[in-house]
């Protein structure tokens, strides 16, 4: 009885959750004129034109590739820098550790609008404008702190005796970290990677400011193309559907880690 109540509640939630996404899918399979002319629960004359346009027009599909490059770079940088830092925060007391830990998170707290200009100036100084690296680096501002916070929680769940045993057995720090410690927190690494991917993938303002053509992200290409010819809702919806796909694949791969996830953490 209780089980059924839960399941029904969950199903209602999922139906509500999927409605806007279904509507996006519905729109993506119709022409613009069709969308605007009549209400319809399902596409009466489904067409793949919107998708064909995205896959054949380089200015469209290059946006996905650009986004994918800088998001991958960002996930790599975030994880590689955050892993040792999170270990330090979870295992050591050192000068200013608590302040530094909270300071990291404060970098997510500034309203982006006015900060975009100094960002642009800073990255122009280093000649990084319109490179994937610039966007990847700027996204570290909000992803690295998150990665450190989440990883620290997982690491603190691993008893310190494990470290001590390994050192007594003569392991060097890098060998211990790579062969013993990282496998223990691989769930945490999966969760962190998903969050970094997600926040970098959907971020628009910084990515748009720091790029012109060569590294333009898909979210920015959508706004540009849309404003040029009025609003092509169908095309936009198709592009929206396609932006979900890579992320859905990522979460499919880390789903078991998420399920077990945070398993060790006190976070």
């Amino acid at each position, binding site marked *: 009885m209780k089980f059924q109540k839960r399941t029904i509640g969950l199903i209602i939630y999922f139906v509500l*959750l999927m409605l806007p996404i279904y509507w996006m899918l519905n729109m993506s399979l119709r022409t613009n004129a069709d969308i605007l002319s009549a209400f319809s629960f399902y596409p009466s004359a489904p067409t793949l034109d919107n998708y064909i346009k995205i896959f054949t027009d380089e200015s469209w599909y290059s946006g996905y590739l650009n986004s994918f490059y800088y998001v991958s770079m960002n996930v790599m940088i975030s994880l590689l820098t955050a892993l040792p830092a999170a270990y330090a925060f979870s295992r050591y*007391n050192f000068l200013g550790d608590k302040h530094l830990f909270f300071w990291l998170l404060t970098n997510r707290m500034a309203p982006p609008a*006015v*900060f975009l200009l100094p960002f642009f100036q800073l990255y122009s100084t280093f000649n990084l404008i319109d490179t994937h690296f610039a966007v990847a680096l700027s996204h570290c501002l909000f992803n690295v702190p998150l990665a450190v916070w989440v990883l620290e929680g997982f690491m603190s769940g691993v008893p310190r005796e494990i470290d001590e045993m390994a050192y007594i057995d003569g392991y060097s720090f890098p060998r211990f970290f790579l062969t013993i410690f990282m496998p223990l927190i691989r769930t945490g690494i999966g969760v962190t990677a998903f969050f970094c991917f997600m926040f970098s993938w959907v971020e628009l303002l910084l990515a748009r400011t720091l790029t012109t053509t060569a590294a333009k992200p898909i979210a920015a290409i959508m706004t540009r193309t*849309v404003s040029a010819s009025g609003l092509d809702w169908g095309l936009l919806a198709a592009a929206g559907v396609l932006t979900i796909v890579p992320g859905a694949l990522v979460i499919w791969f880390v789903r078991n880690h998420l*399920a077990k996830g945070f398993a060790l953490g006190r976070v």
Partner: protein
Amino acid sequence: MNKWQDNKAWFMVIPVFLVVAVSAIIPLMTVVNYSLQDIFGPDQRVFVGLEWYKDALTDSRLHDALSRQLLFSSLVLLIEIPLGILIAMMMPKKGWSASLSLVLVALPLLIPWNVIGTIWIIFMRPDIGLLGAAINGMGIPFDHTAAPVSAWVTVMMMEVWHWTPLVVLLAYAGLQAIPEAYFQAARIDGASAWATFRYIQLPKMRGVLTIAILLRFMDSFLIYAEPFVLTGGGPGNSTTFLSIYLVKQAVGQFDLGPAAAFSIIYFLIVLLFCWLFYQALLKVGTGDKS
């Protein structure tokens, strides 16, 4: 607590510090610099001291935007945190249905923010949108472009739809971490479902919920793209949240100095609240160790 005391740990933190500091400190200093000057052009600047801060603190439209923002973020926390915990507790714990639930829950998080706003414009249209048509079909006049209440309801629905999944994912992971032995012990003691929740599940989720509350607070307080695309801050000023007002000032009137001062005040408000939340949540943890 029982950590090793060693200042050499700083070496492990340096990469993170450098990567973040590059993007954090220099732009922050630049904005502080702007906020103290009147800027006419690239080479024409006058130092005005704290003038812009005074202006911002006495700007009544800013006060209105701030109260709207506080109301919005409070509603976000009050709805999304309990709802997220509830959904996480309903989700299956293992098997294919658990995998499927996780993937479905994560989908709204993966859509770029401006696209979310755009899709919701159509979704809420009374004539061709599913939800807009449904609400109007029930005989309730609903148009988010005309009535402030409808606009608020729409923005809240979009926000809850979009971001509750983040709370669900965090809470679900926290729940999964609780060893089965705890529940067995609770059953043997004949604990009610509420007692199990209150004394086992909730304390065990404290850490993930701290992250969820802080993230949801700061992100909702800084929300820009979705309501801007959906309502443009209207009708009137009814959904002009703090960041929308900021952009109107910075871009619309092209007045860098006041906008910079505004940004710094804005940042300090978020910082203050997050610090208070963080301190409070740390205390809850130590007083409640069961």
